[in-house]
């Protein structure tokens, strides 16, 4: 089988598996685990577009996640907008914030660690703003009343939430799939590998990076929209604090940034590790993050391409060994 057919087959198999999960996993606890992993996947896939393919590492993805969550909550609570319409507006709001931060940072040529820092600072500005005004609920945050029904984008069972989130993850993965195969994706990779060379080849690097940022921000704001409909509560720390920004890059870095399945793989490894450490420690606060940090260091040290690069590494090692025995 050629690689293309193989990967399509693999994706179809994975899709089938995820579609069947609620048939076998009935408990709220079990489905909650899958939902958490899918939420990491969605955030991770969003980060992957900008950080993995375009090579622009964001440390402030919570700016987009939080915008989605807050816009969704405010539109429903204060303006009585229909949740489906609100979700669309929240998506656009997230994309607009992405365009704003992106155009400023890229216009002034920030890259690498500087770009990471400026995105973090923007997220912190938004955290302070959300914490200071009345219409964002100030320090106490916003609570969305639970009114289950498809028209309200709220559901009484977790299975429905699961399928909604699965659809969003599928959408994000489809975007990345398209990026991998499109000319636009090649531009992104060219910029990641050598921005000056890409510019010399006639790629409009500013515009290309900006589009990647807007796409990435739009996907992240969808994660925020889902978050508020599922957890029904948001405050400035949850929405714009560092936790979500960190979650956004952990999954792709562990799974493999700049690959289609890396963020999904990483998200489930993180989710599993989090559950495991929680059970072993009896639910001590923060122990899962210690585990994530150790795992991240190990991956950076021994598998810099992430888990997705593992099969190729093993293949290479086997091949070189085979070559050695043949020569001998």
């Amino acid at each position, binding site marked *: 089988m050629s690689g293309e057919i193989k990967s399509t087959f693999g994706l179809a198999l994975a899709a089938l598996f995820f579609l069947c999960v609620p048939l076998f996993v009935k408990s709220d606890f079990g489905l909650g685990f899958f939902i958490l992993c899918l939420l990491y996947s969605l955030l991770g896939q969003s980060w992957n577009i900008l950080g993995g393919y375009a090579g622009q590492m964001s440390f402030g993805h919570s700016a987009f996640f939080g915008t989605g969550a807050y816009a969704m909550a405010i539109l429903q609570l204060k303006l009585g907008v229909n949740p489906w319409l609100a979700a669309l507006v929240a998506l656009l709001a997230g994309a607009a914030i992405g365009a704003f931060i992106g155009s400023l940072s890229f216009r002034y040529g920030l890259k690498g660690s500087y770009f990471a820092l400026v995105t973090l*600072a923007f997220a912190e500005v938004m955290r302070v703003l959300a914490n*200071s005004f009345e219409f964002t609920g100030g320090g106490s945050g916003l609570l969305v009343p639970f009114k289950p029904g498809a028209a309200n984008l709220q559901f009484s069972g977790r299975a429905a939430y699961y399928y909604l989130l699965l659809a969003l993850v599928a959408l994000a993965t489809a975007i990345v799939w398209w990026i991998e195969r499109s000319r636009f994706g090649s531009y992104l990779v060219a910029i990641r590998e050598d921005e000056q060379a890409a510019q010399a080849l006639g790629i409009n690097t500013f515009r290309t990076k900006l589009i990647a940022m807007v796409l990435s921000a739009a996907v992240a704001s969808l994660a925020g929209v889902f978050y508020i409909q599922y957890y029904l509560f948001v405050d400035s720390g949850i929405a714009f604090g560092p936790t979500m920004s960190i979650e956004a890059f952990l999954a792709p870095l562990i799974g493999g940034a700049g690959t289609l399945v890396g963020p999904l793989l990483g998200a489930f490894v993180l989710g599993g590790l989090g559950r495991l450490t929680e059970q072993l420690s009896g639910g001590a606060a923060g122990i899962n993050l210690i585990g994530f940090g150790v795992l991240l260091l190990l991956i950076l040290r021994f598998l810099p391409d992430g888990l997705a690069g593992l099969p190729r590494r093993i293949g290479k090692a086997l091949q070189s060994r085979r070559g050695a025995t043949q020569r001998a």
Partner: protein
Amino acid sequence: MPDPAVIFASVLNGITTGSIYALVALGLTLIYGVLHIINFAHGSLLMVALYAAFFCYTLLGIDPYLAMFLLVPAFFCVGYLLQRYIIAPIRFGRDQNVLIATVAVAMIVDNGALLLWTSTTRTIDVPYANGIIDLGVAFLPVSRVVAFFAAVVIALIFWAMMVFTDLGRAIRAVAREQHGARLVGINVDHIYATSFGIGTAGVAAAACLLLPSFYITPQVGYTFVLVAFTTVVLGGMGSFIGALVGGILLGVVEALSGLYLGESLGQIGIFLIFIIVLLVRPDGLFGRAAGA
């Protein structure tokens, strides 16, 4: 419009707070200037140093100012080992790897502290904690005034070390031209780790000076790390005098924006300055132009 006396008092207060920011930032600017590493774990190391000074006082009865002589060498070793054996092997020629590695270290350290020492806010009660200097228009706590002068002295020590010692010359050589430095026989890995160690030792000194007038929680590192980055960027990456002036400037901005915008919204001042400096003048107020 607040009373001029209130403004003056708040500026003075800002200067002393700013000198603490400068203290924390001095080590960070050294690490950045030499290794071109953005060390995200800097705040977490400060937090650990604060706890170390706290336990020195509560368990061993050592005054924080004296504990400095114990903690500064200890934290030099911590920083040296951290760079040499955990951060350096991850670099693979990419600065971004280092940034992520230091984030991972920060996650481990912060949450480890949460696990060990819980999120309880702790303070110590030293005899001189309530000492106050009356300036006529404003009162200043003694411990803050000590921290201010210590910041100036430590910045001068850092500067003198860089200019007058062989170690300083080696560090500058490595910062400027790594390969050339290696060619003339400088052990680059050792200099990297030494710089990281000195930067971390600076954090220990800052912690000892900070403790008498500050509180500790496991989250305190994150609060400081962003302010320290802002200070470093504002002062020009790698400039000690810049860090000193930048820190004090930030303290004043924070105090004034708190005064005018209120406690919650006032925090925005520092982040806005950070963004504007990064965008418009990434070399800082005292930095050399890029490439120099």
